[in-house]
C-alpha cells in the first residue's frame, strides 16, 4: 500500500554531471502503509521479526563483535538471524560504532539500496553522542540525524551477548509494529538529506540510491 505522495515531485540529483543524470533514477522514495487487515500485518511482522538478515557491513570497532554472532558460541541463527553480503536482501543494518564521514556516505548508499521494511541497530555509545570520538574532526556524533535508528545498544564496546539481547528486543518491537524507520526516513526525507549533505562535502551520488 503506497501512501499518496506527490509523484510529480522528483529529486534534483544536483551532485551528478549531466551525463550521469541520465543513468540514475530521480524518483522520490515512497512511504508504505501497513496491510489494511491487522491480522495480515501482524503475521507479516512476525515473519519479518523471525527472519532478520543482517547486512555484512562493518563500521567502527563494533564490526568485530558481529563476527562471533554466527559462531558456535553465540549462534544467532537460532533466532533467524543470518548474514547477507548484499544490501538488496538484508533487512537489518548494524552500525557498529562510530561512523566517519567517509563511511557515512557508504552507509547511506547501502541503506537506501535495502528493501523495506528495514531496520537500523546502533551498537556502542559512539552513534548516540559521539562517545570518545565526540570532538573528532571526521566522525558524526549523533547518528540519528542522518538515518532513522530503531534500536540503540550502548556500551563501549557491547559484547555479542548484548547484541543478541538487542536483536531479541528488536524482534519484539517489530512484532509490535513499532519499527517504521523506512517510513520515517521517507516522510522526513528533505530534513535527513539536508543533514547528510551538511557533513558530506563531496556529494557525487544521486539523492536517493535506488
Amino acid at each position: 500500500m503506497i501512501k499518496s505522495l506527490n509523484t510529480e515531485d522528483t529529486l534534483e540529483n544536483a551532485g551528478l554531471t549531466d551525463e550521469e543524470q541520465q543513468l540514475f533514477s530521480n524518483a522520490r522514495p515512497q512511504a508504505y502503509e501497513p496491510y489494511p487487515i491487522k491480522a495480515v500485518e501482524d503475521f507479516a511482522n512476525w515473519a519479518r521479526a523471525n527472519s532478520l538478515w543482517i547486512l555484512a557491513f562493518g563500521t567502527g570497532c563494533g564490526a568485530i563483535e558481529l563476527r562471533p554472532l554466527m559462531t558456535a558460541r553465540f549462534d544467532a541463527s537460532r533466532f533467524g538471524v543470518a548474514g547477507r553480503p548484499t544490501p538488496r536482501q538484508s533487512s537489518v543494518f548494524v552500525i557498529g560504532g562510530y561512523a566517519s564521514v567517509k563511511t557515512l556516505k557508504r552507509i547511506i548508499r547501502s541503506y537506501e539500496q535495502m528493501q523495506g521494511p528495514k531496520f537500523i541497530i546502533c551498537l556502542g555509545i559512539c552513534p548516540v553522542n559521539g562517545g570518545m570520538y565526540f570532538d573528532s574532526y571526521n566522525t558524526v556524533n549523533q547518528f540519528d540525524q542522518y538515518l532513522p535508528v530503531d534500536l540503540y545498544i550502548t556500551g563501549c564496546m557491547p559484547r555479542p551477548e548484548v547484541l543478541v539481547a538487542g536483536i531479541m528486543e528488536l524482534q519484539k518491537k517489530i512484532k509490535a509494529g513499532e519499527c517504521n524507520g523506512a517510513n520515517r526516513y521517507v516522510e522526513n526525507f528533505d530534513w535527513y538529506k539536508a543533514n547528510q549533505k551538511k557533513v558530506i562535502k563531496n556529494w557525487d551520488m544521486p539523492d536517493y540510491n535506488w
Partner: protein
Amino acid sequence: MIIEDFDFWLGKAGYFSLTLLIVTFYGLLVGAFIDRTIAKVQGRIGIPYRQPFINILKNFFKRTAISHGVMFYLGPVFRIAGGIGTLAFIPVLYGSEMFSNFSMAGDLFLVIYFMFFGQLGMALGAGESGHPYAAIGIARGLSQMTAYEVPFVLAVISIVIQYDTLSITQIVAAQQGGWQNWTVVTNWVATLAAMLAFLGMMGYSPFDIFLAPQEIPIGPPTEFHSAYLGLMQLNRALFGATKLVLFMNLFFGGATSWPELMIKTLLIYMVAIVVGVAFPRFRVDQGIRFFFKIPTLIGIMSIVYVQMMLVA
C-alpha cells in the same frame, strides 16, 4: 471424446499440483534438516525447522522491490519454470497413478533439458541485473555446470543402453524386486560417475564456488530481492528435491511410497553433505578439471562396462 480427454488432463494437472506441493514442502523441510546437520558438525544448534518457510514468507512480505528490466523479472520465473518442468516429467512414486505426473516415453531427455533451462534463464536474469559479481557468478556457475553435465550425461547414456529405454518409469520398473536389481548394484560404474556429478549439481562444498558467499557476495542472486528472491528460494527447495527424486529413480530403485521416497532421498542428499562438510572449496578451474578427469573417465568406463555386460 474431447471432453473425456479434458477431464483426464485436468485430473492429471490436479494430481501434479498436489505432488508439487508435497515435494516443495519436503524440499524446504529437508533443507532445514540439512542446515541443522551442518550446524551440528560445526558445534552449533542451527536454525529452527520453520526457518526456510519464514524466510520465504518474509521475502514475499517485503514492501518494496525494484526492477532492472524485463529479463530481471523473468529470471526467477524461468528458474521456477525449470524446476516445475523437471518435476512434471519425473514419476515420483512408482506404480502410483496419482504421483506419476506426466511421465511418458522419452521423458528422460526432457528432464535433462529442463534441468538446463532453469539455469540458463537464471543466467539471463542475473546478467540483466548488471552487477559485476552476478556476472562472475554466472560465468563460474555455467562453466561448472558444463563440466559436471559430462559425467552425468555419460552415466545416463550408460543406463539408457543398459535398460534400452528412455522412459524413467520403465527404468524404475526394471529395478523392482529387491535391492539387487537397483542400478547401483547392476551398474555401479555409472552410479559412481553420476554421484560425483551429483556433488557438483547440489552446489555444496567443494563445488560451491559460483555462490561463494565470502568472495563474490553470493554470485548470481546478488541483486535479487523481495519476491524475486522468495521465488528463487522456493525453487531451490523444489529443484533440489526434484534432483534427489531423479537420482533415486535412476540409480536407487525408485520408491513406491512417500516414506520410502523420503528415506532414500535423504540418504542420497547426505552424500553431498558428508562430502560438503569435510572438504574445503575448489576454485573454479580446479572444479572443472576435477570433473573432466576422473568422473568423466568413470563415465566412459560405465558405457564400456554396460556393453560388456550386455555381451556377456
